[in-house]
């Protein structure tokens, strides 16, 4: 039941972000699918298997690879799938908590949380670079043939 709810909400959230960013109507389903896949990977990895930083890296990698293939398949810019797919992984909750502790003068916790937010943002960065790596490998391999 919880998993069904997660699947449904992450799909709606990702394709909803597609609408907020005015993505083309025909790409909305794929946006939702990419976002849902990334979020479900993250959901299964944390906290059972690993910490949230490596889980974010893997989920972002998965999102970037999926968006790369979606972009190739449907002949639209990769940015459309990337953005809506990555949104669920953005550490909005943690950033909010960090800000809240700053306001409440609890600086120790606030700095601790801010560092975690920075690490997570870095994780997203590494994951997103992954699609570029794959693209370059594919381009090099196809050129050599």
């Amino acid at each position: 039941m919880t998993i069904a709810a997660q699947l449904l909400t992450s799909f709606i959230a990702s394709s909803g972000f597609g609408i907020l960013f005015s993505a083309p109507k025909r790409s909305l389903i794929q946006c939702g699918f990419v976002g849902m896949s990334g979020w479900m990977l993250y959901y299964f990895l944390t906290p059972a298997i690993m910490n949230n930083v490596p889980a974010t890296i893997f989920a972002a990698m998965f999102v970037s690879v999926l968006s790369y293939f979606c972009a190739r398949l449907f002949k639209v810019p990769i940015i459309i799938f990337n953005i809506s797919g990555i949104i669920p992984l953005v550490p909005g909750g943690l950033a909010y908590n960090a800000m809240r502790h700053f306001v409440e003068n609890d600086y120790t916790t606030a700095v601790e949380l801010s560092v975690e937010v920075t690490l997570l943002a870095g994780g997203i960065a590494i994951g997103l670079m992954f699609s570029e790596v794959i693209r370059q490998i594919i381009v090099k391999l196809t050129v050599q043939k």
Partner: protein
Amino acid sequence: MVLVIGSRDEARVEKVCMIAGKIMLMSGAETHRVEDTMNRMAHAFGVENAQSHATPTGINFSAGMTEVNNFVRISKRPTDLHKIAEVNSISRKIVAGELSLETAYDHLQKVEAEPSVYKVWLQILIAALVSGCFVIMFQGTWIDFLPAFIAGGLGFAVMTGMDRLLEIRYLAEFFGAFVIGVSAYLFIYYGFGLELDKVIIGAVMPLVPGLHITNAIRDMVAGHLLSGISKGVEATLTAFSIGAGISLIFAFI
């Protein structure tokens, strides 16, 4: 080397490339993608060695290293992925040789004049729905779905409204976040909803600068340090204004 096209044609090619780049950059495309598209289009029209340099606030383009330099200033950057996809398909057709210079120019002008695909009320409704969904994704309960739905919709509506009134986008985001904070606090205070944190986090998600973060990273990776850094700063400023707007309510209670 034979001159493929005359200087008058060259000026028209420049015009087409500039308008394509302008639309893409205004709609929120990555700068390396903008430059790549402009160069491809110029190449397809027979301009060898075209030079383009795009930053988030302007584009430089010339048909050759020693040719006249053209410049266009980008001041407003509303996100519109639909237009990026449209320009992308036009540039594909140009590269495939299916579009002439005149038709390409007409198509691009049509794309530039197009209004947003989705109406504002629909976007506000979707923002509200997304807010509710994020509560469930962040392990919240269904009781908090409706408070987050209303607070998120209100916050997004205020942000869009303020964005039309104010020149500074960060202020619009600040007020949107402030409305979310106040409404979420009032909901919880009067027993409508359980966890304040979950409601606020869910409701604030539609304002998160996801586009700027991804673009900053992709630009940096492509070696566009200037636009990568400036977009990163834009994302940080947005995050700060949202955080400040949300936290303001905690200063009073």
